[in-house]
C-alpha cells in the first residue's frame, strides 16, 4: 500500500477526526482570505480613486476636507463653497503647473424632478480640466457638450427612459467610467455650462431650484510640475491662500486609512485567536488519534514500515485534510465576499473593489498556505511522537 492510499484510508476510516481537522482548516483559510480580500480590496479602491482623481493636490474650503473626502469616497453628496478668486491665487503658486475648478452639487431627494435621488454631481471646467477631459477624449473622442454627462459605473438611465432627469432637466449619459469601488462609481460629471443651465432652468422645472452661488467654486484640483514637492506646495497654499485646506494625494483619505488600521488590528487579533484555537484543537485531535492508533501503527512498523514512512503518512493525512478544508473555506469566503461586496461596502462604510484575478490567486495561495502550515505544525508533535515509538512497545500498550 503506498503512502497516499494509506493516508486516504485513514481519512475515510475516522470521520470525526477528519471533519474536525477539515473544519479547523476551513475556518483558518476562510478567515485569512476574507481579511486579505477586504483589506486589499479597500486599499486597492483608495489607490484607484486617487489615480482617477488625477490631481496631486485638491484645495477645498477650510474645515471641509473630511466632507469632501467622504463625498468622493462614499458618494454622499456635499455642497461646499469658496471664492473663485482662490483659483487664480492657487495657479500663481510656484510649482503648480495646472489648476482646475470644480463645483460639488447634488440631486434632490424624493423629488419627481430628479430620477436619481441624492446623487453626487461634479461639475468641471472643460477649458482647464486635466482629469475628466483626457479620459473623455480617449473614450468618446471629444469633450462633453451642453446637456451631456459621464457617470460612474453604477450610474444608469432608468428603464424605459432615454435620459436622466436632474432638476427637471434631461441629461444625456454619454459614457460610464470604469469601477473604482468608491463613491465615484455613483457620481455624475457634467461641465460648468451644463451645471449653470440646470441651475437657470431649475427655477421653472424643479421642485426646488439648484443654487450655485455667484463667483464660487467648491474645489481646485492642482497638478504639480514634475519634481515639485507636494508638501512644500501645500504649505505655500496655506500661507498664500487664506481660508482653504490643501489635501495632498499621499494624505488623501487619511481618516479612512486610520479607520482601516484600527480594523486591521481587530481582525488580525481574531485571526490570531482562530489560528491558536485551531492549532490546539488539531493537536488534541491528532494526539487522541495517535493514542487510538498505537497498535495499528505498531503493526505497521513491525511489518517493516520505517519511522519516516509512518511520520510521512500521518503528515500527508493532515495535509490532505488541510487542503480539503482550506479549499472549501477559501471558496466559501471568496464567494460570499464577491456576492455581498455591495452590502459589505455600505455596512462598513468604506470603499471596496475586488482585486484582479492574478492578485486574487496570490491571496488564495496565501490563505491555503496558512491553513496547511497551521494543520501540519499542530499535527507534527503527535505524529513525531508516535512514529518514534518502538513497535513492540506500541503494540503491547
Amino acid at each position, binding site marked *: 500500500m503506498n503512502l497516499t492510499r494509506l493516508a486516504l484510508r485513514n481519512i475515510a476510516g475516522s470521520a470525526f477526526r477528519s471533519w474536525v481537522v477539515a473544519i479547523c482548516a476551513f475556518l483558518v483559510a476562510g478567515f485569512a482570505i476574507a481579511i486579505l480580500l477586504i483589506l486589499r480590496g479597500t486599499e486597492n479602491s483608495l489607490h484607484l480613486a486617487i489615480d482617477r482623481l488625477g490631481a496631486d493636490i485638491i484645495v477645498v474650503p477650510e474645515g471641509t476636507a473630511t466632507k469632501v473626502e467622504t463625498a468622493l469616497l462614499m458618494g454622499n453628496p456635499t455642497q461646499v463653497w469658496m471664492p473663485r478668486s482662490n483659483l487664480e491665487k492657487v495657479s500663481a503658486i510656484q510649482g503648480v503647473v495646472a489648476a482646475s475648478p470644480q463645483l460639488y452639487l447634488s440631486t434632490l431627494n424624493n423629488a*419627481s424632478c430628479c430620477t436619481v435621488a441624492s446623487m453626487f454631481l461634479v461639475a468641471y471646467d472643460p477649458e482647464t480640466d486635466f482629469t475628466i477631459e483626457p479620459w473623455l477624449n480617449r473614450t468618446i473622442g471629444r469633450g462633453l457638450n451642453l446637456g451631456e454627462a459621464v457617470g460612474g459605473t*453604477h450610474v*444608469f438611465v432608468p*428603464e424605459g427612459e432615454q435620459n436622466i432627469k436632474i432638476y427637471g432637466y434631461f441629461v444625456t449619459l454619454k459614457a460610464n467610467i470604469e469601477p473604482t469601488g468608491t463613491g465615484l462609481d*455613483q457620481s455624475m460629471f457634467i461641465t460648468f455650462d451644463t451645471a449653470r443651465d440646470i441651475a437657470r432652468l431649475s427655477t421653472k422645472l424643479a421642485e426646488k431650484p439648484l443654487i450655485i452661488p455667484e463667483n464660487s467654486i467648491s474645489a481646485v484640483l492642482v497638478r504639480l510640475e514634475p519634481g515639485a514637492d507636494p508638501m512644500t506646495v501645500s504649505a505655500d497654499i496655506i500661507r498664500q491662500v487664506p481660508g482653504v485646506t490643501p489635501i495632498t494625494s499621499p494624505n488623501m483619505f487619511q481618516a479612512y486609512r486610520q479607520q482601516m488600521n484600527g480594523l486591521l488590528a481587530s481582525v488580525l487579533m481574531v485571526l490570531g485567536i482562530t489560528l491558536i484555537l485551531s492549532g490546539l484543537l488539531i493537536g488534541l485531535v491528532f494526539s487522541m488519534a495517535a493514542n487510538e492508533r498505537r497498535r495499528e501503527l505498531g503493526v505497521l512498523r513491525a511489518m517493516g514500515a520505517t519511522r519516516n514512512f509512518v511520520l510521512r503518512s500521518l503528515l500527508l493525512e493532515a495535509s490532505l485534510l488541510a487542503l480539503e478544508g482550506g479549499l472549501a473555506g477559501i471558496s466559501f469566503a471568496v*464567494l*460570499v465576499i464577491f*456576492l*455581498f461586496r*455591495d*452590502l459589505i461596502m*455600505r455596512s462598513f462604510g468604506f470603499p471596496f473593489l475586488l482585486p484582479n484575478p492574478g492578485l486574487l490567486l496570490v491571496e488564495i495561495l496565501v490563505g491555503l498556505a496558512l491553513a496547511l502550515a497551521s494543520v501540519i505544525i499542530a499535527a507534527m508533535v503527535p505524529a513525531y511522537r508516535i512514529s518514534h515509538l518502538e513497535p513492540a512497545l506500541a503494540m503491547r500498550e
Partner: protein
Amino acid sequence: MKIIGAVLIVLSLVVAIVPMFTDCQSQGRAIVLENGKTIPMKCHWSGVAELVVAIPLFVLGVMDIINRNLLVFRYLSILGIVLGIFIILIPTNLIGVCISPEMLCSSVMRPILILAGIFVVVANLAGVWISFKSQNKPV
C-alpha cells in the same frame, strides 16, 4: 438522503421567504406611471418566480426524506440540480433585480438567492454521488 432532504427544505424556505422581505415592493418602492398608478419593480417578479421554484424544491426535500429507493433519489437529485440552476438564473439572467447597488434587492436578495442556488446544486450533486456510491448497499 434524510440530511440532504432536510437541507433542501431549509433552502426552499430561504428561497421563498427572503424575496418577500428584501424586494423593492417590501421597501415601499415601485415604478410610478404617468397616470399616477404604481407597478412593482422587476425584483418583485423575480421573488414571485423564486416562490414558484421553491415550492417544488420543498416537495423534493420532503420526498428525499421519505423515499427509500436509490434510483428515485438519484432522479430527484438531478431534478434538484435543475431547480438550483433556476434559482440562480432568475435574479441574474432570466428576470433580474434592480440595477442600483444601493437597493436591498441588489445588495441582499440577489446574493442570498445565488448562494442558496449554489447550495441547492451542491447538495443535489452530493445526492447524485451518494446514490452512485451506495448503489450496491442496502438503503
